[in-house]
């Protein structure tokens, strides 16, 4: 008897969990997907191809007619792709930073070299080109 009661309680609790946890879970997952998209976008990644997919998922969920497994599979796809875009964006922004750092370093170095050695270089060239000129 006690086992039967426990079994009923378990089944009830499990079914309640299924009924009430699914929509919340999806909302959380949409939030998660959006967060990954947001991060990728903020890091300069192009997420324009993923936004319509997420919008379709939101529409499906809001309409109330959706297959949980399909929606979750789509959300996983969005999350995975957004993470890939984010990783690529981070690499690109790091490369840009390195490029800019090297450029700025070279510019500063050139400025110093021009400041220190340009007059001497200029007059050396001038003398080489026009040193044999005779003043009359």
């Amino acid at each position: 008897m006690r086992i039967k009661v426990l079994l009923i309680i378990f089944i009830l609790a499990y079914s309640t969990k299924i009924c009430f946890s699914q929509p919340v879970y999806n909302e959380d997952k949409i939030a998660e997907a959006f967060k990954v998209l947001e991060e990728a976008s903020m890091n300069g990644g192009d997420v324009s191809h993923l936004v319509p997919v997420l919008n379709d998922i939101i529409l499906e969920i809001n309409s109330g007619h959706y297959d949980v497994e399909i929606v979750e599979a789509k959300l996983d796809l969005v999350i995975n792709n957004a993470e890939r875009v984010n990783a690529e964006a981070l690499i690109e922004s790091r490369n840009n930073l390195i490029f800019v750092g090297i450029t700025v370093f070279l510019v500063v170095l050139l400025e110093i070299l021009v400041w220190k050695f340009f007059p001497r270089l200029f007059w050396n060239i001038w003398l080489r080109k026009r040193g044999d000129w005779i003043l009359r």
Partner: protein
Amino acid sequence: MRLDEKIQAVIMIALLALGILTAAPVILGDRVVEPFSELGILGPNMKLGDYPREIPSGENIDLYLYLGNHEGTIIYYRVQVKLGDQSTNVSDTMPYQGEILSTYERVLDDENNCTLPISISLIETGINKRIVFELYEYKSEIREFEYEGNWVQLWVNVTEPR
């Protein structure tokens, strides 16, 4: 100024300009000076104006919701359609305390906009009913939609059903 000094100055200014042009985008980033979102209601013909003034009770009115994102990043929007009247004013800081008629959600990439067809039906008859559209933005840090003070409204009279 001697000739060599003039050339030296020109070269140094050119190098300085090159350095600034290279570093500026990285230092300043793609910062948006005045980020903002757009919320608008279009009439049944997708135009500003021609809004219905008299609505028979229980009948659907077809409108269009316009959203625009100029926030500099992707935004997850929620628009709540609320019903009210003259007794309470709409605030820029607090959400309107009215019955929620419907909710629409949309994710928009930066510098994008969308127009959504919406349908509203009012049951209770009365004059000067206020249909308020409020814009919320999802904040990932707090995991909640937050009211940003963006709202528009339509004044309608709900008449007896035809």
